[in-house]
Protein backbone atom coordinates (compact mmCIF):
# COMPACT_ATOMS: atom_id res chain seq x y z
CA UNK A 1 0.00 0.00 0.00
CA UNK A 2 1.32 3.41 -0.90
CA UNK A 3 1.31 6.36 1.46
CA UNK A 4 -1.24 8.26 -0.61
CA UNK A 5 -3.69 5.40 -0.35
CA UNK A 6 -2.96 4.77 3.32
CA UNK A 7 -3.37 8.44 4.20
CA UNK A 8 -6.85 8.46 2.70
CA UNK A 9 -7.81 5.48 4.81
CA UNK A 10 -6.39 6.56 8.15
CA UNK A 11 -9.53 8.17 9.51
CA UNK A 12 -11.87 5.47 8.18
CA UNK A 13 -9.44 3.01 9.77
CA UNK A 14 -9.90 4.72 13.12
CA UNK A 15 -13.65 4.99 12.60
CA UNK A 16 -13.78 1.23 12.15
CA UNK A 17 -15.58 1.39 8.81
CA UNK A 18 -12.96 -0.42 6.72
CA UNK A 19 -13.45 -4.08 5.93
CA UNK A 20 -10.93 -6.46 7.57
CA UNK A 21 -8.69 -6.72 4.50
CA UNK A 22 -8.44 -2.95 4.08
CA UNK A 23 -7.88 -2.51 7.80
CA UNK A 24 -5.04 -5.05 7.80
CA UNK A 25 -3.45 -3.29 4.86
CA UNK A 26 -3.44 0.03 6.68
CA UNK A 27 -2.12 -1.60 9.82
CA UNK A 28 0.78 -3.22 7.94
CA UNK A 29 1.64 0.04 6.17
CA UNK A 30 1.72 2.02 9.42
CA UNK A 31 4.17 -0.49 10.87
CA UNK A 32 6.72 0.51 8.24
CA UNK A 33 5.91 4.17 7.58
CA UNK A 34 6.71 6.72 10.31
CA UNK A 35 5.07 9.49 8.32
CA UNK A 36 1.74 7.72 8.11
CA UNK A 37 2.06 6.67 11.74
CA UNK A 38 2.38 10.34 12.64
CA UNK A 39 -0.64 11.24 10.51
CA UNK A 40 -2.53 8.43 12.23
CA UNK A 41 -1.74 10.04 15.57
CA UNK A 42 -3.21 13.34 14.35
CA UNK A 43 -6.33 11.62 13.10
CA UNK A 44 -6.64 9.92 16.47
CA UNK A 45 -6.91 13.34 18.12
CA UNK A 46 -9.84 14.15 15.84
CA UNK A 47 -11.57 10.90 16.75
CA UNK A 48 -11.09 11.74 20.43
CA UNK A 49 -12.99 14.97 19.80
CA UNK A 50 -15.93 12.90 18.59
CA UNK A 51 -15.79 10.79 21.72
CA UNK A 52 -15.66 13.79 24.05
CA UNK A 53 -18.37 15.77 22.30
CA UNK A 54 -21.30 13.87 23.78
CA UNK A 55 -22.96 14.88 27.07
CA UNK A 56 -20.72 13.73 29.89
CA UNK A 57 -22.01 11.27 32.48
CA UNK A 58 -20.45 9.28 35.32
CA UNK A 59 -20.78 5.50 35.51
CA UNK A 60 -22.16 3.88 38.68
CA UNK A 61 -19.56 2.99 41.33
CA UNK A 62 -20.35 -0.72 40.89
CA UNK A 63 -18.71 -0.68 37.44
CA UNK A 64 -15.33 0.10 38.98
CA UNK A 65 -15.71 -2.58 41.64
CA UNK A 66 -16.63 -5.17 39.03
CA UNK A 67 -13.66 -4.15 36.93
CA UNK A 68 -11.28 -4.51 39.88
CA UNK A 69 -12.77 -7.88 40.70
CA UNK A 70 -12.08 -9.08 37.15
CA UNK A 71 -8.56 -7.71 37.34
CA UNK A 72 -7.91 -9.49 40.62
CA UNK A 73 -9.25 -12.72 39.21
CA UNK A 74 -6.97 -12.24 36.24
CA UNK A 75 -3.96 -11.81 38.53
CA UNK A 76 -4.87 -14.93 40.52
CA UNK A 77 -5.23 -17.00 37.35
CA UNK A 78 -1.86 -15.79 36.07
CA UNK A 79 -0.15 -16.66 39.33
CA UNK A 80 -1.64 -20.12 39.62
CA UNK A 81 -1.38 -21.06 35.96
CA UNK A 82 1.06 -23.86 35.69
CA UNK A 83 1.26 -24.39 39.44
CA UNK A 84 -0.25 -27.85 39.25
CA UNK A 85 1.95 -29.11 36.42
CA UNK A 86 5.05 -27.65 38.07
CA UNK A 87 4.15 -29.17 41.43
CA UNK A 88 3.40 -32.56 39.98
CA UNK A 89 6.43 -32.60 37.75
CA UNK A 90 8.65 -31.77 40.69
CA UNK A 91 7.18 -34.49 42.86
CA UNK A 92 6.79 -36.96 40.01
CA UNK A 93 10.32 -36.55 38.75
CA UNK A 94 11.82 -37.16 42.17
CA UNK A 95 9.61 -40.17 42.83
CA UNK A 96 10.27 -41.64 39.38
CA UNK A 97 14.03 -41.21 39.78
CA UNK A 98 14.07 -42.86 43.18
CA UNK A 99 11.87 -45.72 41.98
CA UNK A 100 14.15 -46.26 39.01
CA UNK A 101 17.24 -46.15 41.17
CA UNK A 102 15.83 -48.64 43.67
CA UNK A 103 14.89 -51.15 40.95
CA UNK A 104 18.29 -50.86 39.27
CA UNK A 105 20.03 -51.34 42.60
CA UNK A 106 18.00 -54.46 43.27
CA UNK A 107 19.02 -56.09 40.00
CA UNK A 108 22.71 -55.25 40.36
CA UNK A 109 22.91 -56.55 43.88
CA UNK A 110 21.06 -59.76 43.00
CA UNK A 111 23.62 -60.56 40.29
CA UNK A 112 26.72 -59.71 42.37
CA UNK A 113 25.95 -61.04 45.82
CA UNK A 114 25.32 -64.64 46.89
CA UNK A 115 21.98 -66.30 47.79
CA UNK A 116 22.17 -65.21 51.44
CA UNK A 117 22.77 -61.55 50.49
CA UNK A 118 20.04 -61.81 47.87
CA UNK A 119 17.48 -62.92 50.43
CA UNK A 120 18.48 -60.11 52.78
CA UNK A 121 18.43 -57.53 50.01
CA UNK A 122 14.98 -58.60 48.89
CA UNK A 123 13.64 -57.81 52.32
CA UNK A 124 15.18 -54.33 52.28
CA UNK A 125 13.87 -53.51 48.76
CA UNK A 126 10.37 -54.54 49.70
CA UNK A 127 10.43 -51.98 52.50
CA UNK A 128 11.77 -49.23 50.15
CA UNK A 129 9.06 -49.92 47.59
CA UNK A 130 6.39 -49.59 50.23
CA UNK A 131 7.77 -46.17 51.18
CA UNK A 132 7.83 -45.09 47.51
CA UNK A 133 4.25 -46.19 46.99
CA UNK A 134 3.20 -44.12 50.00
CA UNK A 135 4.98 -41.05 48.58
CA UNK A 136 3.27 -41.41 45.22
CA UNK A 137 -0.09 -41.72 46.92
CA UNK A 138 0.65 -38.58 48.97
CA UNK A 139 1.66 -36.70 45.81
CA UNK A 140 -1.56 -37.64 44.07
CA UNK A 141 -3.57 -36.46 47.08
CA UNK A 142 -1.56 -33.20 47.17
CA UNK A 143 -2.36 -32.59 43.53
CA UNK A 144 -6.04 -33.17 44.23
CA UNK A 145 -5.90 -30.76 47.19
CA UNK A 146 -4.20 -28.08 45.09
CA UNK A 147 -6.78 -28.46 42.33
CA UNK A 148 -9.63 -28.13 44.84
CA UNK A 149 -8.02 -25.07 46.41
CA UNK A 150 -7.57 -23.37 43.04
CA UNK A 151 -11.13 -24.18 42.10
CA UNK A 152 -12.42 -22.52 45.27
CA UNK A 153 -10.31 -19.41 44.68
CA UNK A 154 -11.41 -19.01 41.07
CA UNK A 155 -15.02 -19.75 41.99
CA UNK A 156 -15.31 -17.02 44.59
CA UNK A 157 -13.20 -14.41 42.80
CA UNK A 158 -15.22 -14.72 39.61
CA UNK A 159 -18.73 -14.68 41.11
CA UNK A 160 -20.73 -11.89 39.44
CA UNK A 161 -22.27 -10.68 42.73
CA UNK A 162 -19.18 -10.93 44.86
CA UNK A 163 -18.46 -7.97 47.18
CA UNK A 164 -14.89 -6.80 46.94
CA UNK A 165 -12.90 -4.73 49.43
CA UNK A 166 -9.36 -3.52 48.97
CA UNK A 167 -6.63 -3.92 51.53
CA UNK A 168 -3.96 -1.25 51.92
CA UNK A 169 -0.29 -1.84 52.46
CA UNK A 170 1.44 -0.66 55.60
CA UNK A 171 4.90 0.82 56.08
CA UNK A 172 6.36 -2.56 56.93
CA UNK A 173 5.32 -3.98 53.55
CA UNK A 174 4.69 -1.05 51.21
CA UNK A 175 4.54 -3.06 47.99
CA UNK A 176 1.95 -5.54 49.16
CA UNK A 177 -1.59 -5.57 47.91
CA UNK A 178 -4.68 -7.44 48.96
CA UNK A 179 -8.36 -7.92 48.31
CA UNK A 180 -11.12 -9.54 50.31
CA UNK A 181 -14.00 -11.12 48.43
CA UNK A 182 -17.28 -11.84 50.11
CA UNK A 183 -19.35 -14.44 48.37
CA UNK A 184 -22.93 -13.39 47.65
CA UNK A 185 -23.98 -16.42 49.64
CA UNK A 186 -22.33 -14.80 52.65
CA UNK A 187 -20.79 -17.78 54.39
CA UNK A 188 -17.25 -17.55 53.12
CA UNK A 189 -14.84 -14.76 52.41
CA UNK A 190 -11.67 -15.09 50.39
CA UNK A 191 -8.64 -12.98 51.10
CA UNK A 192 -5.92 -12.78 48.47
CA UNK A 193 -2.60 -11.06 48.88
CA UNK A 194 0.16 -10.20 46.45
CA UNK A 195 3.77 -9.20 46.92
CA UNK A 196 3.97 -10.16 50.57
CA UNK A 197 7.47 -10.88 51.84
CA UNK A 198 8.37 -14.55 52.13
CA UNK A 199 8.68 -15.20 55.85
CA UNK A 200 11.18 -17.20 57.82
CA UNK A 201 10.31 -20.80 58.60
CA UNK A 202 9.19 -19.91 62.13
CA UNK A 203 6.74 -17.20 61.02
CA UNK A 204 3.30 -17.08 59.45
CA UNK A 205 0.78 -14.48 58.35
CA UNK A 206 -2.29 -14.34 60.56
CA UNK A 207 -5.61 -12.80 59.60
CA UNK A 208 -7.71 -10.87 62.12
CA UNK A 209 -11.19 -9.45 61.91
CA UNK A 210 -11.31 -6.38 64.13
CA UNK A 211 -14.33 -5.13 66.04
CA UNK A 212 -14.24 -2.36 68.61
CA UNK A 213 -10.47 -2.61 68.81
CA UNK A 214 -10.51 -6.35 69.46
CA UNK A 215 -9.00 -8.81 67.02
CA UNK A 216 -10.68 -12.10 66.19
CA UNK A 217 -8.41 -14.80 64.80
CA UNK A 218 -9.48 -16.35 61.51
CA UNK A 219 -6.39 -18.43 60.86
CA UNK A 220 -2.96 -18.33 59.28
CA UNK A 221 -1.49 -18.69 55.83
CA UNK A 222 1.85 -18.57 54.07
CA UNK A 223 2.92 -17.21 50.70
CA UNK A 224 4.71 -18.78 47.76
CA UNK A 225 8.01 -17.56 46.38
CA UNK A 226 6.27 -14.81 44.39
CA UNK A 227 4.65 -13.39 47.50
CA UNK A 228 1.16 -14.61 46.64
CA UNK A 229 -1.06 -16.11 49.33
CA UNK A 230 -4.73 -16.57 50.00
CA UNK A 231 -6.91 -17.45 52.97
CA UNK A 232 -10.50 -18.62 53.25
CA UNK A 233 -12.50 -17.16 56.11
CA UNK A 234 -15.50 -19.24 57.13
CA UNK A 235 -17.77 -16.69 58.71
CA UNK A 236 -20.06 -17.33 61.64
CA UNK A 237 -21.09 -13.66 61.71
CA UNK A 238 -21.68 -11.22 58.83
CA UNK A 239 -18.53 -9.58 57.64
CA UNK A 240 -20.23 -6.20 57.84
CA UNK A 241 -20.38 -6.52 61.64
CA UNK A 242 -16.63 -6.07 61.80
CA UNK A 243 -14.74 -2.82 61.49
CA UNK A 244 -11.63 -3.94 59.69
CA UNK A 245 -9.44 -6.82 58.59
CA UNK A 246 -5.74 -6.90 59.43
CA UNK A 247 -2.94 -9.27 58.50
CA UNK A 248 0.01 -9.49 60.89
CA UNK A 249 3.21 -11.48 61.07
CA UNK A 250 3.20 -13.97 63.96
CA UNK A 251 5.16 -16.95 65.19
CA UNK A 252 4.50 -20.24 63.42
CA UNK A 253 1.26 -21.77 64.62
CA UNK A 254 -0.34 -18.39 65.20
CA UNK A 255 -0.82 -16.15 68.18
CA UNK A 256 -3.69 -15.61 70.57
CA UNK A 257 -3.62 -11.95 69.69
CA UNK A 258 -2.11 -9.62 67.09
CA UNK A 259 1.36 -9.01 68.44
CA UNK A 260 3.45 -8.78 65.30
CA UNK A 261 3.82 -6.09 62.64
CA UNK A 262 0.84 -5.54 60.36
CA UNK A 263 1.35 -5.82 56.63
CA UNK A 264 -2.09 -5.29 55.12
CA UNK A 265 -5.30 -3.81 56.45
CA UNK A 266 -8.61 -2.64 55.21
CA UNK A 267 -11.85 -1.17 56.48
CA UNK A 268 -14.99 -3.26 56.14
Amino acid at each position, binding site marked *: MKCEQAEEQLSPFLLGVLDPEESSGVDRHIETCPGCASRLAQSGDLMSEFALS*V*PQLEPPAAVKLQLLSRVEGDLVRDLTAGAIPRLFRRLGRGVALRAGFAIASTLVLALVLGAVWFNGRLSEVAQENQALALQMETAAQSEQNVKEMLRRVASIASEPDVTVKRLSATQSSPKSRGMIYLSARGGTALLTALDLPVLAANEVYQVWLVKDGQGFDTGVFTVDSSGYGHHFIDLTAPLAEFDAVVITVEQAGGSPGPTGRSVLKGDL
Partner: protein
Amino acid sequence: MSGRPGHEKLNPSGELPAYVDIGEPRRADPASLSDQELLRLIALEEREALEALYDRWSGAVYSLATHMLRDPGAAEEVTQDTFFRVWRRASSYRPERGKVTAWLFSIAHHRVIDEVRRRKRREQTQVSQDVELIDQPADDSTDPARYAILQMNRGELKDALFHLRPEQREVVLLAYYGGLTHSEIAQRLDKPLGTVKTRMRLALKKLRGIMGPQAQEWADNEV
Protein backbone atom coordinates in the same frame (compact mmCIF):
# COMPACT_ATOMS: atom_id res chain seq x y z
CA MET B 1 -1.07 -22.58 52.04
CA SER B 2 -4.08 -21.48 54.13
CA GLY B 3 -5.91 -22.36 57.32
CA ARG B 4 -5.10 -24.28 60.39
CA PRO B 5 -7.16 -26.79 62.35
CA GLY B 6 -10.04 -25.20 64.20
CA HIS B 7 -9.91 -21.84 62.46
CA GLU B 8 -13.50 -22.18 61.29
CA LYS B 9 -14.81 -20.60 64.45
CA LEU B 10 -13.97 -17.05 65.41
CA ASN B 11 -12.41 -17.08 68.85
CA PRO B 12 -12.35 -13.91 70.92
CA SER B 13 -8.83 -13.70 72.19
CA GLY B 14 -9.43 -11.92 75.46
CA GLU B 15 -7.72 -8.70 76.47
CA LEU B 16 -6.01 -7.33 73.42
CA PRO B 17 -4.27 -4.17 72.43
CA ALA B 18 -6.48 -1.77 70.56
CA TYR B 19 -6.19 -1.76 66.78
CA VAL B 20 -3.67 0.97 66.08
CA ASP B 21 -3.14 2.63 62.78
CA ILE B 22 0.59 2.57 62.20
CA GLY B 23 0.38 4.77 59.14
CA GLU B 24 0.37 4.34 55.44
CA PRO B 25 3.29 4.04 53.09
CA ARG B 26 3.03 6.39 50.14
CA ARG B 27 4.33 5.97 46.62
CA ALA B 28 3.89 8.58 43.91
CA ASP B 29 0.20 9.41 43.66
CA PRO B 30 -1.04 7.75 40.46
CA ALA B 31 -3.48 10.61 39.99
CA SER B 32 -0.52 12.90 39.35
CA LEU B 33 0.98 10.74 36.60
CA SER B 34 0.45 11.27 32.90
CA ASP B 35 -1.67 8.90 30.84
CA GLN B 36 1.45 7.40 29.29
CA GLU B 37 3.06 6.82 32.66
CA LEU B 38 -0.09 5.19 33.93
CA LEU B 39 -0.25 2.90 30.93
CA ARG B 40 3.36 1.90 31.42
CA LEU B 41 2.54 0.92 35.01
CA ILE B 42 -0.59 -0.90 33.93
CA ALA B 43 1.55 -2.97 31.58
CA LEU B 44 3.51 -3.94 34.72
CA GLU B 45 0.22 -5.06 36.32
CA GLU B 46 0.03 -2.09 38.68
CA ARG B 47 -3.64 -2.12 39.58
CA GLU B 48 -3.59 1.34 41.17
CA ALA B 49 -2.50 2.78 37.84
CA LEU B 50 -5.50 1.20 36.15
CA GLU B 51 -7.73 2.68 38.84
CA ALA B 52 -6.26 6.12 38.23
CA LEU B 53 -6.79 5.86 34.48
CA TYR B 54 -10.30 4.61 35.10
CA ASP B 55 -11.07 7.50 37.46
CA ARG B 56 -9.78 9.93 34.85
CA TRP B 57 -11.53 8.63 31.73
CA SER B 58 -14.37 6.29 32.67
CA GLY B 59 -16.86 9.14 32.46
CA ALA B 60 -15.94 9.87 28.86
CA VAL B 61 -16.07 6.20 27.87
CA TYR B 62 -19.37 5.65 29.64
CA SER B 63 -20.83 8.79 28.08
CA LEU B 64 -19.86 7.69 24.57
CA ALA B 65 -21.31 4.23 25.14
CA THR B 66 -24.53 5.58 26.62
CA HIS B 67 -24.89 8.04 23.76
CA MET B 68 -24.46 5.40 21.09
CA LEU B 69 -26.33 2.55 22.74
CA ARG B 70 -29.02 4.53 24.63
CA ASP B 71 -28.88 1.74 27.21
CA PRO B 72 -27.20 2.47 30.56
CA GLY B 73 -26.82 -1.20 31.42
CA ALA B 74 -25.07 -2.01 28.16
CA ALA B 75 -22.98 1.15 28.53
CA GLU B 76 -21.80 -0.03 31.97
CA GLU B 77 -20.75 -3.36 30.49
CA VAL B 78 -18.93 -1.65 27.63
CA THR B 79 -17.13 0.64 30.07
CA GLN B 80 -15.97 -2.26 32.18
CA ASP B 81 -14.91 -4.27 29.09
CA THR B 82 -13.00 -1.31 27.69
CA PHE B 83 -10.86 -0.84 30.76
CA PHE B 84 -10.36 -4.56 31.16
CA ARG B 85 -9.04 -4.61 27.60
CA VAL B 86 -6.76 -1.73 28.54
CA TRP B 87 -5.54 -3.88 31.43
CA ARG B 88 -4.91 -6.83 29.14
CA ARG B 89 -3.43 -4.89 26.20
CA ALA B 90 -1.49 -2.10 27.90
CA SER B 91 1.79 -3.50 26.65
CA SER B 92 0.56 -3.21 23.05
CA TYR B 93 0.12 0.58 23.20
CA ARG B 94 2.51 2.39 20.88
CA PRO B 95 3.13 6.08 21.67
CA GLU B 96 4.19 6.80 18.09
CA ARG B 97 0.68 5.88 16.91
CA GLY B 98 -1.06 8.51 19.01
CA LYS B 99 -2.03 9.58 22.48
CA VAL B 100 -3.31 7.25 25.14
CA THR B 101 -6.77 8.80 24.95
CA ALA B 102 -6.97 8.15 21.22
CA TRP B 103 -6.03 4.51 21.87
CA LEU B 104 -8.47 4.26 24.76
CA PHE B 105 -11.38 5.83 22.86
CA SER B 106 -10.61 3.63 19.89
CA ILE B 107 -10.96 0.55 22.07
CA ALA B 108 -14.20 1.91 23.52
CA HIS B 109 -15.59 2.87 20.14
CA HIS B 110 -14.84 -0.53 18.64
CA ARG B 111 -16.42 -2.23 21.64
CA VAL B 112 -19.55 -0.14 21.23
CA ILE B 113 -19.66 -0.92 17.52
CA ASP B 114 -19.40 -4.61 18.33
CA GLU B 115 -22.42 -4.23 20.57
CA VAL B 116 -24.33 -2.22 17.96
CA ARG B 117 -23.69 -4.90 15.33
CA ARG B 118 -24.53 -7.71 17.73
CA ARG B 119 -27.87 -6.08 18.40
CA LYS B 120 -28.52 -5.69 14.71
CA ARG B 121 -27.89 -9.34 14.11
CA ARG B 122 -30.14 -10.21 17.02
CA GLU B 123 -32.99 -7.92 16.10
CA GLN B 124 -32.59 -8.48 12.34
CA THR B 125 -33.98 -5.08 11.67
CA GLN B 126 -33.45 -3.40 8.37
CA VAL B 127 -33.00 0.32 8.54
CA SER B 128 -35.15 1.66 5.80
CA GLN B 129 -35.75 5.22 6.83
CA ASP B 130 -33.66 7.77 5.02
CA VAL B 131 -31.40 9.88 7.17
CA GLU B 132 -32.79 13.38 7.55
CA LEU B 133 -30.41 16.16 6.80
CA ILE B 134 -29.45 18.34 9.72
CA ASP B 135 -31.21 21.43 8.47
CA GLN B 136 -34.52 19.71 7.91
CA PRO B 137 -37.04 18.62 10.51
CA ALA B 138 -36.58 15.01 11.40
CA ASP B 139 -37.27 12.46 14.09
CA ASP B 140 -34.00 12.29 15.98
CA SER B 141 -34.99 9.46 18.30
CA THR B 142 -33.71 6.76 15.98
CA ASP B 143 -31.31 8.67 13.75
CA PRO B 144 -27.82 8.47 15.28
CA ALA B 145 -26.49 11.26 13.10
CA ARG B 146 -29.14 13.79 13.99
CA TYR B 147 -29.25 12.72 17.63
CA ALA B 148 -25.50 13.10 17.87
CA ILE B 149 -25.32 16.57 16.38
CA LEU B 150 -28.14 17.85 18.54
CA GLN B 151 -26.56 16.47 21.71
CA MET B 152 -23.05 17.74 21.08
CA ASN B 153 -21.66 19.86 23.84
CA ARG B 154 -18.25 20.75 22.49
CA GLY B 155 -18.60 23.82 20.30
CA GLU B 156 -15.47 23.36 18.21
CA LEU B 157 -16.42 20.04 16.71
CA LYS B 158 -20.04 21.01 16.34
CA ASP B 159 -19.05 24.19 14.53
CA ALA B 160 -16.59 22.29 12.37
CA LEU B 161 -19.26 19.78 11.38
CA PHE B 162 -21.52 22.58 10.27
CA HIS B 163 -18.80 23.69 7.88
CA LEU B 164 -19.24 20.42 6.03
CA ARG B 165 -21.67 19.81 3.27
CA PRO B 166 -24.74 18.06 4.69
CA GLU B 167 -24.10 14.87 2.76
CA GLN B 168 -20.51 14.77 4.05
CA ARG B 169 -21.60 15.43 7.61
CA GLU B 170 -24.14 12.66 7.66
CA VAL B 171 -21.74 9.93 6.51
CA VAL B 172 -19.23 10.89 9.19
CA LEU B 173 -21.82 10.91 11.95
CA LEU B 174 -23.42 7.68 10.76
CA ALA B 175 -19.99 6.07 10.79
CA TYR B 176 -18.85 7.27 14.20
CA TYR B 177 -22.01 7.42 16.25
CA GLY B 178 -24.04 4.93 14.29
CA GLY B 179 -21.31 2.34 13.99
CA LEU B 180 -22.16 1.73 10.32
CA THR B 181 -19.65 0.48 7.79
CA HIS B 182 -19.13 2.08 4.39
CA SER B 183 -21.41 -0.52 2.83
CA GLU B 184 -24.15 -0.05 5.41
CA ILE B 185 -24.08 3.71 4.98
CA ALA B 186 -24.27 3.31 1.21
CA GLN B 187 -27.22 1.00 1.59
CA ARG B 188 -28.95 3.31 4.03
CA LEU B 189 -28.50 6.38 1.89
CA ASP B 190 -29.09 4.47 -1.33
CA LYS B 191 -25.83 5.77 -2.73
CA PRO B 192 -22.95 3.99 -4.47
CA LEU B 193 -20.20 2.73 -2.16
CA GLY B 194 -17.63 4.83 -3.94
CA THR B 195 -19.69 7.96 -3.35
CA VAL B 196 -19.86 7.23 0.37
CA LYS B 197 -16.11 6.63 0.59
CA THR B 198 -15.39 9.86 -1.25
CA ARG B 199 -17.72 11.89 0.95
CA MET B 200 -16.16 10.47 4.09
CA ARG B 201 -12.62 11.05 2.90
CA LEU B 202 -13.37 14.68 2.01
CA ALA B 203 -15.30 15.24 5.23
CA LEU B 204 -12.54 13.96 7.48
CA LYS B 205 -9.89 15.83 5.51
CA LYS B 206 -11.83 19.05 5.95
CA LEU B 207 -12.44 18.39 9.63
CA ARG B 208 -8.74 17.80 10.24
CA GLY B 209 -8.04 21.09 8.53
CA ILE B 210 -10.63 22.99 10.57
CA MET B 211 -9.97 21.21 13.85
CA GLY B 212 -6.21 21.11 13.51
CA PRO B 213 -5.49 24.06 15.81
CA GLN B 214 -8.38 23.23 18.16
CA ALA B 215 -7.48 19.55 18.33
CA GLN B 216 -3.88 20.48 19.01
CA GLU B 217 -4.95 22.82 21.83
CA TRP B 218 -6.99 20.06 23.38
CA ALA B 219 -4.12 17.63 22.98
CA ASP B 220 -1.76 20.08 24.67
CA ASN B 221 -4.14 20.35 27.63
CA GLU B 222 -4.42 16.59 27.99
CA VAL B 223 -2.83 15.13 31.16
